[in-house]
C-alpha cells in the first residue's frame, strides 16, 4: 500500500480577556442572563456605530509578539457579509486585508525533535451570539455577540493529530502566559476549526482540502482529525475522489458529516469597514509593549531551574500551567524550601487538583498556607504524615496550618521521656519482632517504629523514634 502524507492547518479562535466587548461598552462577563449584556451597537440597531476597543487591540498585539509575529503598523477592518440570526448586523466585523499580526509560530516537540509550526497571521474580530433551540421555537442570546476574538491561523505545517494537540497545547500555554486569554475551553474561550488533506508521498501539490467545524474540546479535535484521516485515506485508497467541502464533527456519532461543498460555499463579499478608521500603531507603542512582555513558558522553565535549583523535570511540570508556576513561586518566596515545595506540589497538590477537578486558582489553598505547612515540617513542629493529612483540608476549606496544628494539638511529641516509655512498651509487647530483628530480619524495625507512632497518635517524630529504637537494639545486642 502506498504511503500518504497528512497535512493539517488550524484556525483557532480565542476570546480575549477584556472587560468590554470589541466595539461597545457591554460587559464580557460569562454566564449572565440571556440578552442582558447588550446595547444598540451589539444588537445592530440602526445608526449605532462601532467603537474600537483599544485594549483588545493591545492584547491581540501582545499575543502576536509572544508568538513571534510581525506587527502591522497600519491595520484595517473589513465586513464579512452573511445572514445568520446570531450575527445582529448580518455582517461580522473582522480583518481580511491587513490583520494586526503576520508570521510567527509555535514550537512543538515531535519524536523527530523540535519543530516550528508557522503562523500565517492573527486577526481580530467579533464573536457571534448563541442560538438556543427550544421545543417549538428558537431564541438568540446576544451576550456573546461582539465579544473580542482573535483568530490565529496556522500554516498547514502539522502532519498528525498528535502534532495538532501539541500545537494547541503550546499555543494555549503561550496565550495564558501572555495574559490575554483564560483559554477556558468550557466557556468557549478557545475554539478551533481544522483544514486537512492527504496526498501520496512524492506528490508536491496538496490534496483536496476539507474543513471541519464544531469541535468544542481538544479531545474532540483529536478524534475528528483521526476520523477524518481514516475517512480520506479510505476514499483515496479505494479509488474514490475527495471533494473540497466543509464537514461538521458530530461528537456523539464520532464522525464528520458533510455541511456544504465548495459550490455552496458562502460568498462573504468582504469589503473595508467604513465605520472604523485604520488602527495605527506607532513603532514606539509596539516596542513599549514588546519590552513589557511577560515571560514565555520556556524562559520560565529555565529561570525556575536557575533560581530555585530544582530539576528541569520539576520546572517543566510546574510551568506547564501558568497558575501553578505562579503559585509555586509565591510559596517558594515564603518558605524558601524550593525542592521540598516542588515535591509537595507535584505529588500531593497536583493529586488534589486532579481529584477535585478544581484549578489551583479555584481551590482554597493559598501559597502562604502551603509554605507554612512545609515550614512546620522542616522545623520539626509536625511530622510528614500529619502534614499530609492536613493538606486536603487546607485545599478544600482553606485556613492557617499553624493555627490548625495548635488548636488540634498535632505538634510532634519530642519529649524524650514520653517517647522512651512508648519504645519500652512496644519492645515489651512485641518480643517476637525484637527477636526477629536480632536474628537479622531488619524489616522488623519498621514494624516497631509503626507501633511507637501509633502509641503516640502519630505525633512522634519518626526520625527520633528510629534513633531510639536503634539505640535500644544496640543496648540489647
Amino acid at each position, binding site marked *: 500500500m502506498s504511503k500518504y502524507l497528512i497535512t493539517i492547518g488550524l484556525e483557532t479562535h480565542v476570546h480575549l480577556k477584556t472587560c468590554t466587548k470589541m466595539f461597545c461598552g457591554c460587559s464580557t462577563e460569562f454566564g449572565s442572563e440571556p440578552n442582558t449584556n447588550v446595547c444598540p451597537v451589539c444588537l445592530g*440597531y440602526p445608526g449605532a456605530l462601532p467603537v474600537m476597543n483599544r485594549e483588545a487591540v493591545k492584547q491581540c498585539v501582545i499575543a502576536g509578539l509572544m508568538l513571534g509575529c510581525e506587527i502591522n503598523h497600519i491595520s484595517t477592518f473589513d465586513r464579512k457579509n452573511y445572514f445568520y*440570526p446570531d450575527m445582529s448586523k448580518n455582517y461580522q466585523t473582522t480583518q481580511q486585508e491587513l490583520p494586526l499580526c503576520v508570521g510567527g509560530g509555535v514550537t512543538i516537540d515531535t519524536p523527530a525533535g523540535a519543530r516550528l509550526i508557522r503562523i500565517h497571521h492573527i486577526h481580530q474580530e467579533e464573536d457571534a451570539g448563541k442560538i438556543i433551540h427550544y421545543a417549538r421555537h428558537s431564541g438568540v442570546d446576544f451576550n456573546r455577540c461582539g465579544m473580542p476574538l482573535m483568530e490565529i491561523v496556522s500554516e498547514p505545517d502539522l502532519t498528525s493529530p498528535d502534532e495538532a494537540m501539541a500545537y494547541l497545547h503550546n499555543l494555549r500555554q503561550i496565550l495564558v502566559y501572555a495574559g490575554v486569554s483564560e483559554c477556558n475551553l468550557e466557556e468557549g474561550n478557545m475554539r478551533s476549526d481544522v483544514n486537512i488533506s492527504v496526498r501520496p508521498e512524492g506528490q508536491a501539490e496538496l490534496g483536496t482540502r476539507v474543513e471541519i467545524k464544531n469541535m468544542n474540546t481538544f479531545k474532540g479535535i483529536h478524534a475528528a482529525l483521526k476520523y477524518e484521516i481514516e475517512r480520506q485515506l479510505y476514499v483515496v485508497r479505494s479509488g474514490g475522489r475527495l471533494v473540497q467541502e466543509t464537514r461538521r464533527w458530530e461528537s456523539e456519532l464520532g464522525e464528520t458529516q458533510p455541511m456544504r461543498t465548495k459550490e455552496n460555499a458562502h460568498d462573504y*463579499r468582504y469589503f473595508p469597514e467604513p465605520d472604523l478608521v485604520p488602527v495605527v500603531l506607532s513603532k514606539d507603542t509596539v516596542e513599549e509593549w514588546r519590552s513589557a512582555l511577560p515571560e514565555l513558558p520556556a524562559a520560565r522553565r529555565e529561570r525556575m531551574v536557575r533560581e530555585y535549583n530544582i530539576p528541569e523535570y520539576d520546572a517543566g511540570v510546574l510551568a506547564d500551567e501558568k497558575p501553578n508556576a505562579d503559585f509555586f513561586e509565591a510559596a517558594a518566596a515564603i518558605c524558601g524550601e524550593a525542592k521540598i515545595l516542588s515535591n509537595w506540589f507535584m505529588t500531593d497538590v497536583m493529586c488534589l487538583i486532579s481529584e477535585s477537578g478544581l484549578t489551583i486558582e479555584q481551590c482554597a489553598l493559598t501559597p502562604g498556607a502551603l509554605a507554612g505547612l512545609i515550614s512546620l515540617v522542616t522545623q520539626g513542629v509536625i511530622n510528614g504524615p500529619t502534614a499530609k493529612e492536613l493538606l486536603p483540608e487546607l485545599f478544600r476549606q482553606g485556613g492557617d496550618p499553624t493555627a490548625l496544628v495548635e488548636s488540634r494539638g498535632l505538634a510532634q511529641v519530642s519529649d524524650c521521656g514520653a517517647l522512651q516509655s512508648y519504645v519500652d512498651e512496644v519492645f515489651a509487647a512485641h518480643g517476637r519482632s525484637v527477636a526477629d530483628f536480632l536474628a537479622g530480619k531488619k524489616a522488623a524495625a519498621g514494624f516497631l517504629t509503626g507501633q511507637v507512632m501509633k502509641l503516640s497518635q502519630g505525633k512522634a517524630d519518626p526520625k527520633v523514634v528510629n534513633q531510639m529504637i536503634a539505640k535500644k537494639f544496640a543496648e540489647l545486642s
Partner: protein
Amino acid sequence: MEDIALLTVAATLRGLKNREFSSVELSQALLNCIDAKDGQLQAYLKVDADYILKQAATADQRRAAGDDAPLLGLPIALKDVINVKGEGCSCASRMMEGYRSPFDATVAAKLRAAGVVFAGRTNMDEFAMGSSTESSAFQVTRNPHNLECVPGGSSGGSAAAVAGGEAIAALGTDTGGSIRQPASFCGCVGLKPSYGRVSRHGVAAYASSLDQVGPLTKSVEDAAILLRELAGYDPNDGTTLDIAVPDYASQLTGNMQGVRIGLPREYFIEGSDPEVTAAVLSAVEACRAAGAEIVDLSLPHTEYAIAVYYILANAEASANLARFDGVRYGHQTAAPGSVYDLYANSRAEGFGAEVKRRIILGTYVLSSGYYDAYYGKAQRARTLIREDYTRAFESCDVMMTPVAPTAAYKIGAATQDLLKIYLGDVFTVPASLAGICGISLPCGSTTDGLPIGLQVLGPAFGESRILSVAHAYEKIRDGR
C-alpha cells in the same frame, strides 16, 4: 411675532431671549402653520403636538430659571432617520413600522443639551435612497413653490418644511447631495459638512463613508449657528475628527474682497438647463463685481463620479441594510416559516422597490469575481476624485457650481427615467466622494418660478470659508 414663514433661527433666538415670545407660543404658532399647510405639502411624517408643546414648556421653564442654553426653546424638525430616544425613526420605510429608538443619536443629544425642541419628523426617500422623496413608503412631499413638483431628496421633507414655512429649521442627511439638492429645489439653504465634522452615531446609515448630517435653514447665518452645535468629535463615531469647532456665525464677515472663486469647467456642461447655468454664472459675476477673483479650473475625474458613487454607496448600503431582518425590531413577516423565509419575506414586504434595487446592485458589485472590476476600481477612482479637489483648492478658496442640472421636476417624472435621476446627482456627488463641505443657497429662479441653487464648495473642514462666502453672496443677492 413676525410671519413664521420668514422667521429665522437667529431671529427666533433673539425673540426667545428677549422674551418677545415664549417657546410654547412659538411652537403653537408653528403647529398652526403645519395644520394649515401640511395637508398639501406633506412634509411631515409625524407631528406630535403634545410632545412638542411639552418640550417647549420645559424650555420656557428652563429660561425662567435662568438657563441660557444656546438654542433654548428653538423648534427644529428632524429628518426621520435620526434616532431620538423613545421616538419612532421610520426612515420612511414600512420596515421600521413600530420601531421605538432606545437611544439618542449624538446630534440629537447635542441639540437636546443646547435646548432644542424636537419638532416633527420629516418625510424622506426610503432609507435616504432617492433624489425626489418619492421613494418614501408613506407619502409624496410637494414642492412649496409648485405643488406639482418634487421637493428634491432625499431630505425633501426637511427642505419643504423649511421653505414652506412649516419649520424654522430642520436637520437632513446628505450622502450624495441629499441636503444640498432639496435645498436648491425648494429655495432654502442646505449645508453638507465635511465628512468627519458631524457625528453619524444614531443616524440610520445609507452609505457610511459618505453620510453626513447637516442643517436646512432660511439663511446662511442660521446654518452657521446650527453647525456650531452639531459639529465636533464624537467618541461614539470613530470617523469624526478632533478638530476645534469655531463659532461659525461670528466669522461671517460679509467680505467678498480677494476671495478666489474656482469655476470647475466640468460643472458647466451642455446637459444642464441653460437657465440654471445662467443663474449660477450671474451669481459668480456678482461676486466678481464685489471683489472676488475668478479662477477657471478643471476637475478631470468628475465624469466618473456618478458611477463611482452608485457602486460605493450601494455596496455599503447592501451591508448597512442587512440588519433589517425581522429578528430584533422592525417589520416581521406574519408567516416566517424557516429562518430564511423570515428574512426573505420580512425584507420583501418591508423594503420598497428603490431600496431593493440598490441592495441588489450593491450585493452584485461586491460579489466574488466582480469585486475588483467594480468596487476595487471605484475605490481607486474615488482617490483620484479626491486628489482633483485637493489640487484645485491650491488655486482657489472656494468653488461655485450649480447644485443640480435642473430645477425641481414634476412629480412622477423621475420614475419614468431612473438613469436621468441618478445623473441629476452629478454636481453634488463628487464633493461627497471627496469628503469636502458644500452649501446650497438660492441664487435665482426659472421663468416657471422654481428656485435655482448655487453650490459653494470648500476643502475638508473649510466650513468657515464656505459659510463666509455664501453669507457674503447672500448680502449681495439681497442688496443688503
